[in-house]
């Protein structure tokens, strides 16, 4: 069993967005679209959940967005370095089957996350339309991997590529003209929330992937709990994908910023120590 957790390839895709291919036979062999891994980069490091964004032989891919101390440090690792702990695959896989017309929306790092889902949907004979949304034209990471989708739409905040506006606006535009059987919307939680509202309006099922704060990722702490309809669910074992129309977005979003002060403090202390994060 090769569980070396070696970084065999690493690439900066955009400012603060880095791609890693990691060698781990068990993850590579067992991962299905929609699942995630947990990294612990070094002793005393945090456990960081990351969605699996591709498989190649004995390796799997994750895309890391630098947002705090742990992800800044992760992005600093180089090819040939090892991740101390890699746990996975975890979580329930996406429900992939033949639906007919499917709309998949990826925003920000979510663009990379939807790649395996889109691929599997195509493999199952679906017609797949994709909306990619980003801040500006420089953030369409890995867009070259969407060549065989049926229709590809771009949206940017500043209009530098495709439509100027937000993902959910493009979504609504498409829904007005075409009937879809199911949809996925994966990206920043505000985007997922807005897309879920559109989906509710058009009575369309929408899968979102929740990036809750996690500790163990095994259902053992309940820290990742989220209210889905009337039920309390654990994102790590019941999710991470849920029907966005049922998610209690308000509490989900406040839980995401639970440790904002602590995160800020950790990052400040870290930057004091290392200086300008030139590697991002």
């Amino acid at each position, binding site marked *: 069993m090769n569980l070396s957790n070696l970084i065999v390839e690493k690439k900066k895709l955009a400012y603060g967005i880095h791609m890693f291919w990691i060698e781990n036979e068990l993850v590579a062999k067992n991962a299905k679209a929609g699942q995630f891994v947990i990294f612990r980069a070094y002793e005393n490091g945090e*456990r960081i959940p990351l969605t699996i964004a591709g498989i190649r032989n004995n390796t799997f891919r994750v895309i890391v967005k630098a947002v705090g101390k742990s992800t800044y440090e992760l992005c600093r690792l180089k090819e040939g370095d090892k991740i101390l702990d890699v746990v996975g695959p975890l979580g329930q896989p996406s429900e992939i089957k033949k639906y007919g017309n499917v709309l998949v929306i990826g925003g920000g790092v979510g663009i990379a996350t939807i790649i395996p889902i889109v691929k599997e949907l195509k493999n199952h004979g679906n017609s797949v339309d994709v909306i990619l949304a980003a801040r500006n034209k420089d953030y369409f990471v890995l867009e070259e991997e969407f060549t065989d989708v049926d229709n590809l739409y771009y949206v940017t905040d500043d209009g530098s590529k495709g439509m100027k506006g937000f993902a959910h606006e493009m979504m609504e535009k498409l829904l007005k003209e075409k009937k879809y059987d199911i949809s996925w919307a994966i990206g920043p939680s505000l985007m997922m929330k807005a897309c879920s509202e559109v989906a509710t309006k058009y009575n369309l099922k929408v899968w979102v992937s929740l990036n809750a704060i996690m500790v163990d990722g095994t259902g053992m702490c*309940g820290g990742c709990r989220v209210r889905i309809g009337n039920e309390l669910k654990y994102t790590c074992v019941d999710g991470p994908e849920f029907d966005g129309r049922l998610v209690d977005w308000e509490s989900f979003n406040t839980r995401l910023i639970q440790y904002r002060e602590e995160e800020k403090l950790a990052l400040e202390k870290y930057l004091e120590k290392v200086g300008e994060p030139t590697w991002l």
Partner: protein
Amino acid sequence: MAVKDRIPPIERNPHERAKDFFEVSLGYDEERAILEAQRCLQCPVPTCVKGCPVGIDIPGFIKQIAEKNFENAYKILKNYNSLPAVCGRVCPQEVQCEGACVLNKTGKPISIGNLERFAADWASKNQVSDQIKIEKKKNKKIAVIGSGPSGLTTSAELAKKGYLVDLYEVFHTAGGVLVYGIPEFRLPKNIVKKEVGFLEKLGVNIILDIPVGFAIQPQEILENYDAVFIGVGAGTPKFMNIEGTELNGVYSANEFLTRINLMKAYEFPKTDTPVKFAKKVVVIGGGNTAMDAARSALRLGADVTIVYRRSENEMPARKAEIHHAKEEGVKFLTLTQPVRYIGKNGKLIGVECIKMKLGEPDESGRRRPIPIEGSNFIIETELAIEAIGTQSNKLLLSQFKGLELNKWGYIKADEFGRTSIPKVFAGGDIVTGAATVILAMGAGKKAAQAIDEFLS
């Protein structure tokens, strides 16, 4: 003849120890151990042994301590219990051996737990090496899933019998609740580390970071191994699920303790995982987990109140821990039940509670708490930590089709751990529901015997 008083263990000053995570009780020195051991009546029909889930020869090891043969005492213990340093510290002795000791009638039972701990610590300090007899290698492979006390025990027993054992654990450290749940101040982690090191010496292959069921399919396990032991615990926390459970500031005890114990959040930002440091904390529950969470919060500088819906008599925690918690300044609010969390901007600011009174005994024999209408009141607090119990860990079970479960979702197994699938054995909390370290170890030992018989 008047019965002599129990010899108390050496304990650190409550005010001093409540500020750090170092061990609270220092146990006995030789002199105290001997004095306590000499109190034992050496009953011809020792009732204490009946109270011990693994039937340790209690008067036997105590006699050796009384006669200063500490090494012999340790060896006797080891015959019955592979983790005496752990059990001496965490077993609920007052309802087991000490509760059954004839002297308990006088209120002065022998301090069997402290004596057990003494013998184990003495052996460790004096580097008594365990004589391990490993039988001839058998060409048979066993998978053990979960490295809590049940998995550790099964692995050790089977390795000694010459089996090839692969022990799988999903966390980055082996030990189960012993490392993520029970705090350092009650069970120093180097004790667990040493026990895990002992397994490695026995040749057990410990494989961390593996979520069995996800990284390895149950089918593969069944194909690649001659037998399987499942000891995945009852680690999934329950919530009361009252209004406001999603608020920031509401924790399960498991999360709070895992952040502190496993992830060392008490050293944040030196370590990377944060936990909320609060001025006021309410802990809900009356078991060991509640005491551990309360005393951990106290050590992070909080003013801590335990809220429990029955009276102190019904609290399931070890008596020693209730006593320690009080000494350290944890407040107790019994006959009180939270009914609602109150938040502001998504953050917890208070818990609304209702007063309770005790009615008729329920199925568990404990008197049922009944709410007193109109007695609602609000406790202001920044954090609320729920320690109201756990349920079966579904990580593996959700993937393990065909394994029969009981109506509570735990694995159906007989007293030897045999499940509905011939090759598959199970034990510990995943069979019984949340119980104790010693019961999990006992189950592991029995299952190891059953596996050996199954494969012979």
